[in-house]
């Protein structure tokens, strides 16, 4: 038996990867796509349902105008054309978590089409063509009980939660992405990350990959160097973090390369991504015989957004991410290198949000690229999945600014936050981290330092005030770091009369 995967470099010397990305975005509308049910995440199962989203006999859908508005905004932000007239279509297939056994979606008449966007990887800009963005409804969510894997295979029964059924989704589909082979996986990641930022800025979605409001399916195929014939592609489903997008694409490249170089054939199939082991496994085999029997949804009337409305929405769009980046870098006074670190670290939006809360750009960058990025890297999580957000960062920085904490103590507070020990105040209390601001305690420590270091005092008195630094160090050590060094210096200077 040959190796399961090739080394990525070996794979890329023989094959060029061809990518296509399908991203599903759950909109943050108050109500569902075709009924008035609420869309809050995490409600008890089947409490946000009605005859329409349960697909009960006789119930009919009505289009959520706000969802159409969001779809148009997304289309415009991706430089798409917006359809003057388009219809919903039924995608027919059976699955227990789909109440009607068809999904109301769009087929050959998407609301937005023919767009493009750009991503930056290692300072290079890559253009990505957008095929379409269309509206559809989400399915319910199945939980398979009794099996070892949590998958349907081997389960004794399944539970279905229809709260998610009918939540508005926008599916954004790229055209074929062909970039320098070595960049493919990084571009895929950058694209999803860029989309997240864009959708966040548009305010149309919570864009939480960890909660499934942004989901990515990656289509990967390989073609031999120099060939123009496309290979068989696989579709890796539900890759749920930016990091996983890159890893999953890389894995599929190396796996398919191993199959092809040993003379095998890549199967056209759906594959599952396993976050823990970093591999994909075979799912449902797809074939050209998959037939969803699309036809125009007879229960809905066509959507025909007026040009005036489209232009009104265009006027509300936030500035393009690439322009915005240039502007922010100027505002913040970051160097190109610093800005690249921010972008590559996915820290742009958190830093923007932190600065909006009154923190200086330098301080915001320090925490997000320092403590927090390190922790995210170590735990293999995305920065926004850490559980520490701009509000916490701003709170900690405020405590630094008012002298309650110094940087060293602040890092310990972040440690506590990341470990889920509570609010900054609680952590300071529990861990006993606050700086000693009581002058008498500091003065006592200063007295001890002076008494213990007569030689240093001698030096200072003989006209070498710089030598006092050693005394400050001694006091800080005495206070186990929990003192404001500037304060110590001031008191010491008074004491020594300098």
């Amino acid at each position, binding site marked *: 038996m040959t190796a399961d995967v090739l080394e990525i470099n070996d794979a890329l010397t023989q094959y060029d990867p061809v990518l296509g990305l399908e991203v599903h975005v759950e909109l943050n509308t108050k109500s569902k796509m075709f009924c008035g049910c609420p869309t809050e995440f995490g409600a008890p199962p089947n409490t946000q349902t009605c*005859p329409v989203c*349960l*697909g*009960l*006999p*006789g*119930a*009919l*859908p*009505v*289009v959520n105008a706000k969802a159409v508005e969001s779809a148009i905004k997304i289309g415009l932000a991706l430089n798409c054309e917006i359809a003057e007239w388009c219809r919903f279509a*039924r995608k*027919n297939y*059976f699955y*227990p978590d789909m*109440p*009607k*056994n*068809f999904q109301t979606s769009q087929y050959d008449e998407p609301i937005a089409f023919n767009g493009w966007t750009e991503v930056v990887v290692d300072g290079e800009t890559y253009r990505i063509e957008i095929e379409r963005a269309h509206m559809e409804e989400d399915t319910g969510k199945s939980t398979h009980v009794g099996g070892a894997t949590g998958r349907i295979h081997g389960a004794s029964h*399944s539970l*279905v939660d229809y709260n998610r059924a009918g939540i508005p989704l926008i599916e954004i589909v790229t055209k074929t992405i062909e970039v320098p082979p070595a960049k493919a996986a990084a571009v895929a990641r950058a694209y999803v990350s860029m989309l997240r930022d864009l959708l966040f800025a548009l305010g149309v979605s919570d864009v939480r990959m960890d909660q499934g409001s942004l989901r990515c399916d990656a289509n990967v195929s390989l073609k031999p160097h120099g060939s123009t014939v496309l290979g068989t592609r696989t579709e890796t489903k539900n890759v749920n973090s930016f990091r996983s997008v890159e890893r999953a694409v890389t894995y599929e490249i190396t796996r398919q390369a191993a199959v092809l170089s040993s003379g095998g054939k890549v199967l056209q199939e759906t594959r599952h991504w396993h976050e823990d082991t970093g591999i994909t496994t075979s799912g449902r085999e797809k074939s050209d015989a998959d*037939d969803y*029997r*699309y*036809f125009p949804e*007879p*229960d*809905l*009337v066509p959507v025909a957004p007026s040009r005036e409305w489209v232009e009104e929405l265009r006027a509300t769009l936030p500035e393009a991410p690439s322009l915005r980046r240039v502007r922010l870098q100027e505002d913040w006074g970051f160097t190109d290198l610093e800005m690249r670190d921010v972008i590559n670290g996915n820290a742009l939006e958190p830093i923007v949000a932190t600065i909006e809360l009154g923190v200086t750009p330098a301080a915001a960058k320090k925490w997000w690229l320092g403590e927090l990025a390190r922790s995210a890297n170590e735990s293999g999580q995305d920065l926004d999945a850490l559980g520490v957000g701009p509000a916490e960062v701003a709170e900690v920085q405020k405590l630094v600014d008012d002298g309650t904490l110094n940087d060293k103590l602040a890092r310990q507070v972040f440690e506590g936050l990341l470990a889920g020990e509570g609010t900054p105040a609680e952590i300071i209390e529990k861990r006993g981290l606050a700086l000693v601001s009581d002058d008498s305690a500091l003065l006592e420590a200063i007295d001890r330092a002076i008494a213990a270091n007569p030689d240093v005092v001698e030096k200072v008195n003989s006209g070498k005030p710089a030598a006092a630094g050693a005394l400050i160090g001694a006091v800080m050590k005495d206070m186990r770091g929990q003192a404001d060094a500037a304060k110590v210096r001031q008191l010491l200077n008074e004491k020594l009369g300098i």
Partner: protein
Amino acid sequence: MSDLTRKTAAELAELMTSGQASSVEITQAHLDRIAAVDGAVHAFLHVDTEGALAQAKAVDDKRTAAKKSGEQLSPLAGVPLALKDVLTQEGVPTTAGSKILEGWKPPYDSTVVKRLKAAGIVILGKTNMDEFAMGSSTENSAYGTTHNPWDLARIPGGSGGGSSAAISAYEAPLAIGTDTGGSIRQPGAFTGTVGVKPTYGGTSRYGLIALASSLDTPGPCARTTLDAALLHEAIAGYDPMDSTSINQPVPAVVEAARNGDVAGLRIGVVKELGGEGYQSGVEARFHEAVELLTKLGAEVVEVSCPHFEYALPAYYLILPSEASSNLAKFDAMRYGLRVGDDGTNSAETVTSLTREAGFGAEVKRRIILGTHALSSGYYDAYYGQAQKVRTLIARDFAKAYEQVDVLVSPATPTTAFAIGDRIDDPIAMYKNDLCTIPSNLAGNAAASFPCGLADEDGLPVGFHVMAPVMRDDLLYKVGAALESALAEQWGGVLMTKAPELEVTR
């Protein structure tokens, strides 16, 4: 007061207004009639005795209170009605004539039912129908065939045979039907009653268990034109829950039914709907009716609608296509029948076993037909082509309405046929709806009015009127004119000629 069941809805309303009868009395009389004759007719699948009497009592109480407060009750408040079992009524079994929904009690009211309740109309129960409204005889019901009160050996038409039989058997003065290809009008014709298919979008489909979403239309069934119009007015109008609902005022149907004046009205006889394949007695009564309208001052011309001949094949592609998708939800997972759930079978197997046991032959036939017609590689040739025919038929109508105000034809090629006669010949069965289908494909308004009995079998013949979208009032105008002219000849409406049913207890 057994004669209460012989009254029209308008007369019953008058009796209640003048205090001569209560809704409870009227409702009870009809429940008694159902108990007496429905064993033979089998119009009802479910009789909601308690619910109906409670509703009647509530209306009577409201009327008493209204006398003091001066509040106006709705025109049909307290009048009983039979509801086709395809519309949901909260807490009342709703089967659509199918085993697969046996025992299902919907948790919500359809818009039609909401409006009936709001108008104080008392719902007696649910009427029999061909399974999922697929059929023209009620023989496809999973719960047995309904018998035609004019001749119990014959079918009452379908799919809404139960609703039309109920009113022609005097079990209810009013009924609700749904019309996808003629399911209100053809049973109306076969039972000597009035059946109206409103403009598509003129009545709400919310809560109507879908057969073909782009064709289904709820509408009124009654023994007189005025009764049909009163019921039409009670249920029609814009519904935000149905995206295909038309946001316009309801046409003045009651006024039209009260003043049936056809003087100067331009009537077009559709050339293609007659001749070969039409029973002689049907043609004879139809042409007499046309002459009668001419005498009343209508201007009658012949009009050609050349694409109507393609209506039937187009219909039998569009309907099964939509139905195959609409019926996919019946998978045993959430409601209704569940077969084979023994802890070993997969969900897929349970779905298969349930659909095998729960769907009848005609339903399976149309699911297979529709699934095939929508398949990739066939879509353009079948579904796509059928949609083009639909456009051509709509153009035929539009062109015709440039020349005339309404179009007319026989409602059906024949009178009611014998039970079992066509059950093995789907094509012969489908041809029943030759005259009625074009109006569904074009979405315009149409109705069948009684116009006499065929000489050869003594069975009722229906006169079919078609009117432009949202000109439902024109149907009633013609219907009322015909009704009063014929009543002069017959000394009453056609129903008075119906044989008396044997009463059993």
